[in-house]
């Protein structure tokens, strides 16, 4: 267990990794082992307590909470992963263009980034939904646009630093094209600072997409997304408490697991995981 997996040696890293594997297994395999349909009532009244056919009881429409729970993880993880991935693509493109070009492009892009960072993220997403309506595309693209500026700043700083090193200057002197220099010399050498807070950004994507889904402004019924489940059953929490706390617990252990692993990896690299001004959906 050396090198890349060193973070597993710390207790919090190992615990976080275990949690993460467990939640991923539930999200991926859950739909196949669910005893009932995730979207159709099972013929029981709403808000029954735990029983043998419905171990976690039923929700406000008489659907099986366990089956919905087993099917509801994919969208939570999938949408956040897609948004984070897209954000990194956009952030890399902007940051590399700004950091490598050394022209007017740099200040132009960076001032735009400053403006984006001065706007509350959740507010941005809500305004976008009010204007463009709610769809998977709007959620993923909106969150990617929110995250890209922060990433592009880090990419730019790292690129500026790396592009002054000898091996980059040598490649430029050899007459290699900019694309080749960027992909072969720059990218591999900026990956550490750029990826160290990937876990933080992934949790942020989960938090903000889940918040919108909780508010009922994201995925629409009959989606069994964990955040939607909480939003749908929240008003009736005293009737079947499991319909609320089961999905809440899943989201909580998922995000805590991601951050424990991220924190452990950052520590094993000797870096700080929570940078100045960590955020929550709104900050």
């Amino acid at each position: 267990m050396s090198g890349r997996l060193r973070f597993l040696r710390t207790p919090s890293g190992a615990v976080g990794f275990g949690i993460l594997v467990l939640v991923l297994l539930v999200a991926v395999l859950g739909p196949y082992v669910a005893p009932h349909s995730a979207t159709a009532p099972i013929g029981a009244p709403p808000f029954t307590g735990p029983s043998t056919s419905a171990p976690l009881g039923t929700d406000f429409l008489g659907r099986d909470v366990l089956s919905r729970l087993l099917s509801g993880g994919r969208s939570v993880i999938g949408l956040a992963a897609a948004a984070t991935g897209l954000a990194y693509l956009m952030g890399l493109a902007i940051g590399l263009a700004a950091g490598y070009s050394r022209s007017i492009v740099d200040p132009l892009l960076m001032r735009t980034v400053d403006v984006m960072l001065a706007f509350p993220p959740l507010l941005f997403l809500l305004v976008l939904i009010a204007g463009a309506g709610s769809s998977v595309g709007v959620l993923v693209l909106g969150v990617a646009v929110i995250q890209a500026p922060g990433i592009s700043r880090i990419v730019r700083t790292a690129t500026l630093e790396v592009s002054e090193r000898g091996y980059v200057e040598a490649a430029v002197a050899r007459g290699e094209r900019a694309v080749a220099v960027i992909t072969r010399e720059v990218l591999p050498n900026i990956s550490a600072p750029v990826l160290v807070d990937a876990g933080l950004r992934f949790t942020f994507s989960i938090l903000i997409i889940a918040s919108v889904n909780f508010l009922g402004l994201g995925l629409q019924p009959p989606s069994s997304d964990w955040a939607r489940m909480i939003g749908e059953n929240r008003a009736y929490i005293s009737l079947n408490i499991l319909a609320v706390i089961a999905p809440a617990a899943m989201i909580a252990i998922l995000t805590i697991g991601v951050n424990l692993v991220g924190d452990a990896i950052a520590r094993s690299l000797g870096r700080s995981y929570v940078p100045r001004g960590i955020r929550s959906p709104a900050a």
Partner: protein
Amino acid sequence: MLAFVLRRLVGAAAALLAASVLIFTAVQVLPGNAASAVLGRNASPAAVGILSRQMGLDRPASTRYAHWLKGFVHGDLGDSAVAIAQGSNHAPIWHLISGPLKNSAILAAITALVMIPLSVALGTLAAVRAGRPTDHLISLGSLAAVSMPEFVVGSLLVAVFFVGLHLLPPVAIVPPGGDPLSHPKQLVLPVVTLLFASMAAGIRMVRAGTFEVLQTEYVQTARLNGLPERRVIMRYALRNALAPSVQVLAQNLQYLVGGVIVVEAVFAYPGIGSQLVNAVQIRDVTVVQSVAMLIAVVYVLINLVADLIVMLLVPKLREPV
């Protein structure tokens, strides 16, 4: 010093101008016309045409933007598009949101009053006990708290304190025109939820700052002079550790501006966040536009004030970079 203040003022104005363009573009220019968004997919073209004219959508976008911004600057937020579509002639957004705005300000103010001293206390405690169990507990606890979305924290708190212990109410309903402070018990869970999500950064920052100062020579000297540890921390360490924390505490306040959006929805609290979510739901585009701009203004102002405070506390920063 004056140059610094001026530069910050211009920066804030530019950010707000950009925000107004962003908001206007997202709400009014993106696919589909605002009138059909308000009326829904099944509206007849004639009805959409009438409402479009009432909302002034037949004018070019640049004219509408200028009109909206001019009104906003003069304190006229415009009319609710949905209310106009439902047949009223006059539905000022300000009447709709002035009550909720006050409620949100109360919720955020109470949270801030608790948050700042508590962050400083916990951060200092963690720094004084650096490397010991108390420190680890505070660090892990704040990492876990900040990992969870507000609505998860809020729902779990309701499960424990309402369903489990019957101690606190699960919602914080205030009748229109009522005073949220007349039922203080209702505000406990919303405030605690906001604290969970917002304190971690402040705690970490105060811990790092205090830890650093505790290693300095003047603190060592004060200790060697036999001053009691409590006095060393209060008089020497804390004061110097706090300046860098002001910015993070301001970021926490900024967080509150947006954090209330979700927390109000969790507890059905009639604030500006609930109003915004409701407006997005019924796609009342003019309300979304003006409320979003209002929130952006508060957000940018807090940042501005924080920068000025930091500048007063740390004279070094006043010199042009």
